[in-house]
């Protein structure tokens, strides 16, 4: 962990247009939850559906994409990363620091709003709010690592990330049960299911698979990202 790298990365993420997306997406989630409360749709069933499809199914991967790729991909693209790479700091330390920044942004802009949205609809009923907030937190960390890796290995990180989140997790995971096992969203739901006692919700992936998978994916993504950054080639305009 390097505080200078973290400081620059936070400034880049929070001081620019990207913060608008980081703020608008959770605001939309909280707005929908508030609306449901106002129009009387505040049942546990509704809350679970809102969490599964919107909070975990849509907002979380999008935020993961913004935070995970945003902490590194634009710097590689415009060459500003040279400022960090031309210093005597190990490159895995740079990727780890950027991961910590992305993960902390996921905690603030994904996990906390997920809790607030669920709380607005059903308060603390059946532990739905706690469960999905915890699921969003852990999955947010995994998304941060995976999308950071994408940001290092490809200049098309956003496209690849969208395809993974929407096509693999959203579409393939919806129809092919086996694909769900390899979906961060599903792992988030497994954690939520573990904490929540709601009768309206049953996760497809067992917790005994989800948690180790999440840890392995996060650690592996970080290790690979560190190694790939060590071998990153940057060329001039020639």
């Amino acid at each position, binding site marked *: 962990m*390097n505080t*200078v*790298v973290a*400081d*620059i990365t936070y*400034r*880049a993420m929070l*001081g*620019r247009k990207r913060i608008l997306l980081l703020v608008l997406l959770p605001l939309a989630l909280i707005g929908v939850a508030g609306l449901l409360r106002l129009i009387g749709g505040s049942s546990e069933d509704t809350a679970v559906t809102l969490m599964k499809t919107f909070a975990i199914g849509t907002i979380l991967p999008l935020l993961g994409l913004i935070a995970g790729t945003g902490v590194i991909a634009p710097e590689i693209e*415009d*060459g*500003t990363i*040279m*400022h*960090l*790479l*031309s*210093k*005597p*700091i*190990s*490159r895995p330390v740079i990727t780890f620091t950027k991961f910590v920044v992305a993960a902390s942004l996921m905690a603030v802009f994904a996990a906390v709003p997920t809790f607030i949205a669920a709380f607005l609809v059903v308060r603390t009923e059946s532990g739905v709010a706690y469960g999905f907030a915890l699921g969003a937190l852990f999955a947010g960390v995994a998304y941060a690592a995976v999308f950071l890796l994408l940001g290092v290995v490809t200049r098309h990180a956003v496209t690849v990330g969208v395809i993974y989140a929407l096509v693999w997790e959203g579409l393939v995971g919806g129809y092919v049960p086996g694909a769900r096992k390899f979906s961060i969203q599903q792992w988030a739901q497994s954690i939520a299911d573990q904490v929540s006692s709601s009768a309206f919700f049953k996760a497809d992936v067992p917790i005994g698979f989800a948690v180790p998978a999440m840890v392995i994916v996060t650690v592996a993504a970080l290790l690979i990202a560190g190694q790939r950054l*060590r*071998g*990153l*080639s*940057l*060329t*001039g*305009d*020639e």
Partner: protein
Amino acid sequence: MTVTTVPAVATREGVVELTRVSRWYGNVVAVNDVTMTIGPGVTGLLGPNGAGKSTLLHIMAGFLAPSNGTATLTGQPIWRNHGIYRQIGLVPEREGVYGFLTGWQFVLSAARLHRLPDPAGAATRALDLVEMTDAKDRRIETYSKGMRQRVKVAAALVHDPQVLLLDEPFNGMDPRQRLHLMELVRRMGAEGRTILFSSHILEEVERVAEQIEVMVAGRHAASGDYREIRRRMTDRPHLFRVRSSDDRRLAAALIADPSSGAVSLTENGLEVQALDFARFTRLLPRVARDTGVRLWQVSPTDEDLESVFSYLIQPRA
């Protein structure tokens, strides 16, 4: 043609060595079998656009792996060796600066990333060195191109590196800033640092560099002091302009010697093609004395860097 006048490098401290380095992208060869030693002093890396200068500089800076061969600094490999950056200051050509930081924050961050004992003091000195103290509290995105360039130089110098690599450093600078940076580069070279800068502007290289390394189409075409390189191009006659008290008599005497090629009489005096540089420079004063002609002016007309460079990139038909 490769012309080499390599200076002896006694110690490897601060010496960048490329040994048979090639770099290709798919089927395109950007750098082809280059062996080069850059020691203390100012060296200009010269070549037309697309000659491979930038690729070579990125290999020396550890941002590109050679496809073949080795690149070392002080005997240590450069690629995948982040410790090497304690010795290197790098000024990339690409903008490469965080526009949302102020000049002060940018240079201070470089000092802190180097874990210097007094980062604020080092940042202050570096900004002062490039005359950016007055503008240091403005965001970099409000800077002109020349100011950005200077703040990048300050960040590269903040840890007082032994080796400074600059990619087209004078681009975008106004004439005063350019002169100031040239003076700074010369001074640092005289202090014994290894400074390599790439440029396609001959005048810049001529004014600053003691040594030149010329790249042409990915190959290392020449190395050394450019006047010396010129003298070693024995396949091209040297052109001299000579003004004297009696040009006609001097021409008649010079043409009789085999070291003189064509001699032509012009409004501005004689133009002599010397086939043998050393012999001609001995011949001319002797002939003038023997014929009683007074020499007023003897000037080589194609010994400047521009002529040397054009000879190197346009091989004789």
